[in-house]
C-alpha cells in the first residue's frame, strides 16, 4: 500500500454488458477510514461498482486500485483484505452459522482457540446470542442471518468492508435495530466502509460520503448536506424529494 493513497480507487473504470448497457466510466476514490454509500435507483450500477471494487468483475476499460496498486481479479487471496456482505447474506446452506463465519479462517488453518475467541468477540459486536452458532442458515431469523454474514465478513479483520444492500430484505423493526448496531460497529472498528443502498436515509445514517449513481454514471458525490443543498442536476433533487415524501414528519426511519 502506497502511503497517502486512497484505500480504493476507480480510474475511468468501464464495465460493459452487451452492446447497449454499460457502467462507467467511473472515477471514484475512497479515502482510508472513510464511509461511503453508493445510492441510486434500481439498475443504476451500484452493485456493479461494488463488484469492480472487489475484483469480482474485471473492468473492460480503466483500472481499479487497491491501496494504490492495480487489482488483479485472478488473485483470489487478495479478496481476503476485504469483508463483503452480499445481498441476502449469501450464507452457505450446508454449513452451520459457526462454519459459515469461520470458513476462511479454518481454511487458513487457524487453531480452534483462536477461532472460538474471534467468534465470541465478533458475536458480541454483532449482538448475536451465543446459541445461534450451531444453527443452519435455514434455522436463523433473517436479521440473525445478516448478522452472521457480517461476522463472516469481519472474521479476518479486513481493512475494507463492502456491503451490498445489507438490510434490503428485512422487516422495519429488525432493520432499525440492525442499522443502529451496524453503525456502532463501524464506528468502533474504524474501517473503510462502502455500502450500497437505494435508501437515502440509510445512506445518510451510515456514510460520510454519498455517491449518487444513475444509468451507470456518477451524478454527484459529497456529503448529504451538499447534495441536499446544492444538487448538481434536477435528478438529484428528484431523488431526494421522492425519498423524503415517504417519511412522516417527526418519525425517524
Amino acid at each position: 500500500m502506497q502511503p497517502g493513497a486512497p484505500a480504493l480507487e476507480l480510474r475511468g473504470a468501464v464495465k460493459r454488458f452487451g452492446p447497449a448497457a454499460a457502467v462507467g466510466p467511473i472515477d471514484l476514490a475512497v479515502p482510508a477510514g472513510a464511509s461511503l454509500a453508493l445510492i441510486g435507483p434500481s439498475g443504476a450500477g451500484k452493485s456493479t461498482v461494488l463488484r469492480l471494487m472487489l475484483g469480482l468483475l474485471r473492468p473492460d476499460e480503466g483500472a481499479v486500485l487497491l491501496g494504490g496498486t492495480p487489482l488483479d481479479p485472478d488473485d483470489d487471496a487478495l479478496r481476503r483484505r476485504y469483508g463483503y456482505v452480499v445481498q441476502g447474506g449469501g450464507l452457505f446452506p450446508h454449513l452451520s452459522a459457526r462454519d459459515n463465519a469461520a470458513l476462511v479462517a479454518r481454511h487458513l488453518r487457524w487453531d480452534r482457540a483462536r477461532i472460538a475467541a474471534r467468534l465470541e468477540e465478533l458475536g458480541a459486536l454483532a449482538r448475536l446470542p451465543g446459541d445461534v452458532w450451531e444453527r443452519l442458515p435455514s434455522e436463523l431469523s433473517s436479521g440473525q442471518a445478516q448478522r452472521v454474514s457480517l461476522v463472516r465478513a469481519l472474521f479476518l479483520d479486513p481493512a475494507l468492508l463492502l456491503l451490498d444492500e445489507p438490510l434490503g430484505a428485512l422487516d422495519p423493526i429488525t432493520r432499525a435495530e440492525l442499522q443502529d448496531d451496524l453503525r456502532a460497529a463501524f464506528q468502533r472498528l474504524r474501517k473503510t466502509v462502502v455500502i450500497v443502498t437505494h435508501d437515502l436515509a440509510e445512506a445518510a445514517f451510515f456514510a460520510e460520503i454519498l455517491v449518487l449513481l444513475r444509468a451507470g454514471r456518477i451524478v454527484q458525490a459529497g456529503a448529504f448536506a451538499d447534495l441536499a443543498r446544492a444538487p448538481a442536476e434536477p435528478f438529484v433533487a428528484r431523488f431526494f424529494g421522492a425519498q423524503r415524501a415517504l417519511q412522516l414528519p417527526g418519525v425517524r426511519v
Partner: protein
Amino acid sequence: MNGAAVLLALAVSGAAPATPAPPVRIGGAPAPPVRVGSKAFVESEVLGELGRQLLASEGIAAEHRRAVGGTRVLWEALVRGELDAYPDYTGTVAKEILGGAAGPAVEALRPALAQRGIGVTASLGFEDTYALGVRPEVAQRHGLAKISDLARHPGLRFGLTNEFLDRADGWPAVRDGYRLPQRDVRGLDHDLAYRALAAGQIDVTDLYSTDAEIRRQGLVVLEDDRRVFPEYQAVFLYRLDLEARLPAAVAALRRLEGRISAAQMIDLNARAQLDRAPVEEVAAGFLRERLGAAGTIRAEGRGARLRGRTAEHLALVAAALALAIVAAIPLGVWAALRPAAGRVVLAAVGVVQTVPSLALLVFMIPLLGIGTGPAIAALALYALLPIVRNTHAGLTGIAPELRESARALGLSRWARLRRVELPLAAPAILAGVKTAAVIAVGTATLGALVGAGGYGQPILTGIRLASVPLILEGAVPAALLALGVQGLFDLVERGLVPRGLRRGRAP
C-alpha cells in the same frame, strides 16, 4: 490310469489333496484353476462341463466358463490364455479359425494349430455337422428331401443362427454351393429359431445334427447332397502350455476321446434341453455310466447358487460403479468449470450411452478379453453419463450469490470447489450415482454373455432352454437387488448430504 493321473497331478503340485475336490496347490498358494470354456449352446456347455468334471475327478482344480460366446470369442480367449481348453469341431477349426489352410481331419489340423500354441485331442467320437431342417409338413408340401430341392422354392423363409449366417462354412457356402435364391433370410438365436420354426414363422433353419429338437419336433433334415458342409468332429482344443505345465489335465480331457457316440450326444442334449436337467447333472451322469469317473457336481442348493451369483453380480456392479465415480466426478467438475470443454464432455458421454449395451460389451472383448474385465469396463462406461451430467448440473445450478460469496471470501478455485460447491452439489451428484447404480444392476445381467457370471447366467440359460423358472431365478434377484441398491443409497444420502441440503427442507 486314474491313479496314475492323480499321482502325476500330485507330483506336479507338490501337495497332497486327499479327495478329488480341493484345488491343486503349489508352494501353499492355490494354483490357478484350469479354465475350460464353452460356447453359447447346450452341447458345448455339456462338453465343457464334462471336461471340468473329468479334471476335477483327477484332483485338478478346474472351473467352467460357461456359454462365453461364439467361435471367435472362445478361440481368441484360448490363444490369449484366458482359457486353457474348450470344445470345438474340426470343420469349424479348419474353415473358421484356420481359414481353410488345413484340411478338416484332426491330423491335418494338429501342426497348423501347434504353430499357434494350441493342441487338439482326437475326435470325441461323434460328428455334429451343420444341416438344414424343415418341418415335416413343409417338406411334404414342397417335396423337400435334399438341400438342392430348396432352390426350386424361392418363397421359403429362412431363419438362421447369427453365427451360421456369417461363417465362411455356413450360409455363404450353402447359398453359393446350391445357388439358393431365397431373399427372406433372418438372423436368430439358435434356440429361438427352433421355436420360430415350430410356430411356423420360418420354414427353414440351420441345425446341428445332434440337436435334441430334431427328435422332438420330428424335423426333416435335408441331405447335404453336394457335400458343402465339411466334417465336424467334436474335439477339445487346449493350450500346449497347459500340457507342459499340467500334463494330467490334458490326459484327463483325452479320456473323452472316442467315448461319445452321436446317439449318446443327442441323448445328453435332450436331457439338458428337453428335460431341463442341469448341465452339471447331465455331465456327471454320463461320466459315472460311461467312464466310471466320479463326476463332481458342486452340489449347490438354490441358496448357495444364489449367493454365488449375488457375489459375482455385486462385485461387477461395485467395481464398475467405483471406476465410474472416479472418472465421472472429475469429468463433471471439469465440464462445469470450462463450458466449452463441458459441451464436448457431455456430448461424448451421451454418445457412449447410445451404444447398445450388448454392442459395448462385445467391443470390449478384443481389448480386454472375456470375463469380468470387459463387463466391468462396459458397465463403467455406461454408468458415466448420469454421474457426469448430475455433477455438471449440480455445480452449474448453484445460486449465483453463493458462488459470488465464496469468491468474495478469497477462497481459491480449489478451496471453493471443495468447501462450498461440491458440498452444495452433493445431493445432485449422489442422485446421479444412485441412477447409475440402479442401471448397472440391470445391465450387469448382460455380463454373463462374456463369461462374467452374475444374475445373467440363469437368465441366459433360461432363454436357451425356454425355462421361465430359470429366467426368474436371475430376473427376480436382479430386480430385488436394484431395489436394495436404491434403498441403500437413500441411507447413504442421509449420511453424506449435508443436513442443510436434504430434501424436504428449505435451504
